[in-house]
């Protein structure tokens, strides 16, 4: 099933339509998301905010195709993810979504260039564009002398730049960020947000899940979520 769109018009990058997520627990079902609907158009920079336990993480997992909804439809780039197999969801994550985590989550055994190239290698084992990694690393303003260093030899801000470069290497439709500045000092956090804003100005669609209002101030739209529902 694909999302209908007007002729000559790109479908929205992300569509949530009446999405419900229920976790069955021994003590009783817990509804983490309750009939959520929203649309993200290409080129948007959106923040999703809410207190702890509001359903942000569940929403992030669904947007990142790490989980599937109990009911409702989710479309990524016009394709419904509900009926996809694990292999298809994995390929979708690889090709259409770039993840940025609070704790950077780089591979400690790989150096900067290898970390950035990793998603490229997953996509095409034989055709890794070595120059692309350098281009992306320049775009995230990481010093070239750090390219052969391992993550543990970098500062938090430098690691997050590498993580952003890794997320961008396969030209994803969406950059999905989970508290991207949550583990950085305010100055470094601000520089990372500046970088993300610049990437957005260059056309990258970015969704940031956060509870930091300063992060939200960089975005063009904020979706507030409380008790599994979107606040009007």
């Amino acid at each position, binding site marked *: 099933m694909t999302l209908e769109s007007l002729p000559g018009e790109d479908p929205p990058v992300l569509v949530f339509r009446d999405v419900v997520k229920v976790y069955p627990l021994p003590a009783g079902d817990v509804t983490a998301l309750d009939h959520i609907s929203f649309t993200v158009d290409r080129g948007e920079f959106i923040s999703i905010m809410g207190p702890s336990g509001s359903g942000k993480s569940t929403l992030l*997992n669904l947007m*990142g195709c*790490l*989980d599937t909804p109990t009911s409702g439809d989710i479309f990524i780039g016009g394709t419904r993810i509900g009926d996809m197999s*694990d*292999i298809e969801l*994995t*390929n979708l*994550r*690889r*090709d259409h979504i*770039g*993840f940025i*985590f609070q704790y950077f*989550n780089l*591979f*400690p*055994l*790989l150096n900067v260039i*290898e970390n950035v*190239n*990793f*998603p490229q*290698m*997953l*996509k095409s*084992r034989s055709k890794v564009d070595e120059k692309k990694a350098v281009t992306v690393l320049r775009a995230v303003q990481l010093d070239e002398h750090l390219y052969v260093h391992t993550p543990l030899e970098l500062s938090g801000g430098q690691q997050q730049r590498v993580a952003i470069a*890794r*997320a961008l290497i*396969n030209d994803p439709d969406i950059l999905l960020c989970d508290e991207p500045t949550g583990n950085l000092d305010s100055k470094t956090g601000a520089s990372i947000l500046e970088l993300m804003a610049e990437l957005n100005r260059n056309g990258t669609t970015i969704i940031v899940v956060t509870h930091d209002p300063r992060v939200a101030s960089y975005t063009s739209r904020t979706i507030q979520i409380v008790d599994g529902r979107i606040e009007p």
Partner: protein
Amino acid sequence: MSTIFWEISKRNIRLHMLRSSLAMLGIIIGVVAIASMGILGNSMVQAVSASLSSVGDSVIVMPYVGGGMGFGGGGGGSSANLMLTDQNYQQIKRVVAPNVAIPVHSTSEHMRMGVGSDDIVATIYGLPPDQTKDILPDLSAGDYNNGNSGCLVGATFATDHNVKVGSRISIGTDGQYGTLRVTGIIKERGMSFDISTDNAIVVTKDWFESTYSDQDQYNEVVVKVTSGDTADVKTTIENQLNRNIKQKTVTVIDSKATLATIYQTFGTITTFVTAIGGISMLVAGVSIFNIMMMSVNERIKEIGIMRSIGTQKKEVMSMFIYEAAIIGVAGSLIGGVLSLLGGYAISALMLKTTQYLFTLSSMLSVVEGVSFGIVICILCGLYPAWQAANLNPIDALRHE
């Protein structure tokens, strides 16, 4: 091969070098145990095979000793009960024709190499001169003895007592049975079912009978089977001479069948000792399983990240299987090389020879040990790899 996962596996082994080396050591010990035991077993079989092969296709007929029932009468004493009569011999000769039946006398006797030399006790065999060549086809020196004043000596006897062609041996405690001249030296035969000549002397049947007044009684009859199968010849003799089931006359040994039984026994021993080596390999496998589980548990978050950014389950699985395989292949190959040294040492210590070390069957033992090591490692890495691949990415990402 997915190079990035191969690379990560290699680096993870390097990162945990001590742990990986210890697991590898277990595999090395397992391979050495299996392959060395295999080499020893195969070397034993080949050593025995080499010493028994000269027997050829023979059927040996001996007086029946089972159950204490003898044959032939008279003479009293048990020794008389352990002889074949000339009548038995004639019967055997008739039923095995056209194969040759050779009557064999034997006894232990004192002898000296010369005046003043030490007294020796050795076996004396008495064989018909015209049939000696049938039992003893190879001499290392000299010629066959046709007269009653000559004898042949075994290879070990000749070496131990410095006997050469032309040497004289005085027979009897005081030389009362006369002196025999050595006409030839019998090539080394090793263990044999018929007669063991290496540490013995061989005289003519006539000399033996006249010396020991032992006519018409033989210790055994050797049938050299040139026509038909040894098993058939054995059955024919048994049917003819052991008609009375309650009072059997002869025990018949089929050298070929006995040889086969010996090989089978050695095969069983080899399998048994190799299986003991296999236990150490299983222990090593458990250690591989353990470190692979540790590796998976330490990297749950990494696995979650990999899965979240688009790594397929089979790719995660391959990464852990590579790790187990690297340890397995490296450990097994090192074990294979060391097992040659181990096999050399064990063969040298136990068999006193290493000539069978580089034979095909010994090399096959090494290949088996190495293959078993690799297979065990990969098998023991499968479950941890499968577990890693099937982690829920959301749970794995949350893991601290």
